[in-house]
């Protein structure tokens, strides 16, 4: 964890690298879909790059995340190799889930990406269980539950917050408030108009941050991670941001007021952070381009890998329904 101590140049450059990876990956997915090379349900994370990038620099491989259908930014930031994502998107045998899960169910336990769920709210109860495992096992693992603003109104949110609070579990509830839930505006459907304020009702720490400000997110995440590792319980972070696209690929997003969208895009966090890096002299243009080229190369290879990979065999249809590999126990020792 070289980046957790100080918010210095190296940290900000690494955050930017992850952001650029997310943005560029998204651009290339769009391009591949438009060209018909990929055929998939896809939920763009554009506009939300800062959140997982500034959070994930505090995490280890052993730390867990749960994310949602709109989760490719979380996955990439957590270190899930792009090639496995692309191959999964392409439905190939080499995908992170052998092509069986698809875009909404990307999993990579090796890097701590434990669940990607398509059911609103469901990342949270499972994250509670992952957090519980840290407490039961007495280890230092932290779990992050990513979810959207719309998910803050479903029952699973409430049950998870309360249980995590009561047991002081090492869980960070990261609400990525992009102001929309499908076609629904946050304000219209959320009593009280704040997600993080609800934390008080559970006796939990809740904070609101500008989700497009790397330092603000980094600070909030640092505190939350420290709290979790110290056994002081969960944190609810509401990171405000904006969705740059319709809900999913193919949705023109007409219901998003044009002026709001224009304003948000004019403040594209990827551009902003890049400019900040240069303005403040954290890195020079040449080094930045080298870094960006490496990302471009990675994604190019990911796409090539995906599209040249084989389809799953038909017998995959019925494997992995149950564990058929392990031999069941026939007896256990007991002491009288």
């Amino acid at each position, binding site marked *: 964890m070289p980046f957790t101590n100080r918010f210095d140049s190296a940290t900000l450059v690494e955050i930017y690298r992850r952001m650029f990876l997310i943005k560029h990956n998204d651009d290339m997915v769009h391009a591949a879909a438009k060209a018909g090379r990929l055929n998939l349900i896809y939920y763009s994370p554009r506009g939300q790059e800062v959140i997982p990038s500034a959070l994930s620099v505090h995490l280890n491989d052993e730390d867990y995340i749960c994310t949602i259908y709109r989760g490719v930014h979380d996955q990439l930031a957590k270190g899930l190799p792009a090639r496995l994502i692309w191959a999964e998107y392409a439905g190939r045998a080499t995908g992170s*889930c052998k092509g069986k899960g698809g875009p909404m169910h990307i999993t990579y336990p090796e890097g701590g990406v434990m669940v990607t769920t398509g059911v609103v709210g469901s990342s949270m109860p499972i994250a509670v269980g992952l957090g519980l495992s840290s407490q039961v096992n007495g280890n230092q693992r932290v779990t992050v539950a990513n979810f959207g603003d719309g998910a803050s109104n479903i029952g699973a949110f409430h049950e998870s917050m309360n249980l995590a609070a009561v047991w002081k579990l090492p869980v960070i509830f990261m609400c990525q408030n992009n102001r929309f839930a499908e076609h629904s505006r946050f304000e219209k459907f959320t009593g009280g108009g704040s997600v993080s304020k609800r934390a008080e009702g559970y006796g939990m720490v809740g904070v609101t941050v500008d989700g497009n400000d790397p330092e603000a997110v980094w600070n909030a995440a640092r505190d939350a991670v420290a709290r979790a590792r110290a056994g002081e319980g969960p944190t609810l972070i509401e990171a405000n941001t904006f969705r740059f696209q319709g809900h999913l690929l193919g949705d023109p997003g007409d219901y998003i007021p044009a002026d709001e969208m224009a304003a948000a895009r004019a403040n594209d966090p990827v551009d902003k952070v890049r400019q900040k890096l240069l303005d403040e002299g954290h890195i020079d243009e040449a080094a930045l381009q080298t870094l960006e080229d490496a990302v471009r190369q990675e994604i190019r290879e990911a796409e090539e890998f995906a599209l040249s990979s084989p389809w799953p065999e038909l017998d995959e249809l019925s494997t992995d329904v149950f564990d058929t590999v392990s031999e069941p126990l026939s007896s256990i020792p007991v002491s009288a």
Partner: protein
Amino acid sequence: MDRITVGQAINLALHDAMQFDSSVIMLGEDVADPEGGGVMGVTRNLSTTFGDNRVRSTPIAEQAIIGAGVGAALAGLRPVTEIMLMNFTTVAMDMIVNHAAKLRYMSGGQTGVPLTIRTMTGAGAGTAGQHSDYLEAWFAHVAGMKVVTFSTPADAYSLLLGAIFDNDPVLFIENITDYGTSGPAPERGKVARLGEAKVIADGKDVTLISYGAIMKTVLKARQALAKEGIDAQVIDLRTIAPFDAQTLIDNVSKTGRAVIIHEAVTEFGVGAEIAALLSERLHGKLKAPVRRIGSNFSAVPFSKVLEQAYVPSAGSIQEVVKSLMG
């Protein structure tokens, strides 16, 4: 308008029901026009026509959506609620099963829940494991619930009216790939009677029993079989629960052979009930065993090659039918 799509038929049924009866209201995520009139556009213009008071987009809260529907129904309204995808009914099962379905019985008939729950599902759109399941067998297993689906736009219209004006809770199932399917327009205002199956193609060699969007595959199989000299009758269940046992028994007793096809997985599916019933009632009178064809016993896989192999195909239906003809 002599032809109409499924999406249009559903929209029209909702429109006509709301115009006729001011107690019909609509609740669901994104169903009103400020939220686009439904993620598939199926409920478009209804909030504009009938007002925000009667057509309401809701927060993402399926328990509250169905709970609100149950409460409003107890108070005499006829709520049409939408659970965006069938897999999300899992969130609201307490409200549906322990409450909507049981309040009439548990109150000794003092109250009732004239609630419609529209939901969509189905493989084929690449939505994979958590967005594509057919779970109708669960609801059919619950006394007090009705379960309805359709295979033509005209039936979508009249069965949805039948569901809305039924005095008991009805789960109304739509298929995600099917909204653009077109067919002859319905007779406006015609309300289907629930619980009636329909022979949609006659035949003397075997009875194919099915329901919902997969009927297209069944009809394709029938045509192919005809070319091989096998004359298959096709029955559309239309109401899955309580289903029209008599029509099935009468017809299968004539053909002597039955195959039940649905997109839900075979095991413990609706086909099991029908096969058990037919086998029992027609014991000794069948020329071949009753067969069931459903999807593969797994979650719905993403990869196109697997997703296609997951659902019943016309080819698999033909093969099964041919194996019964010996």
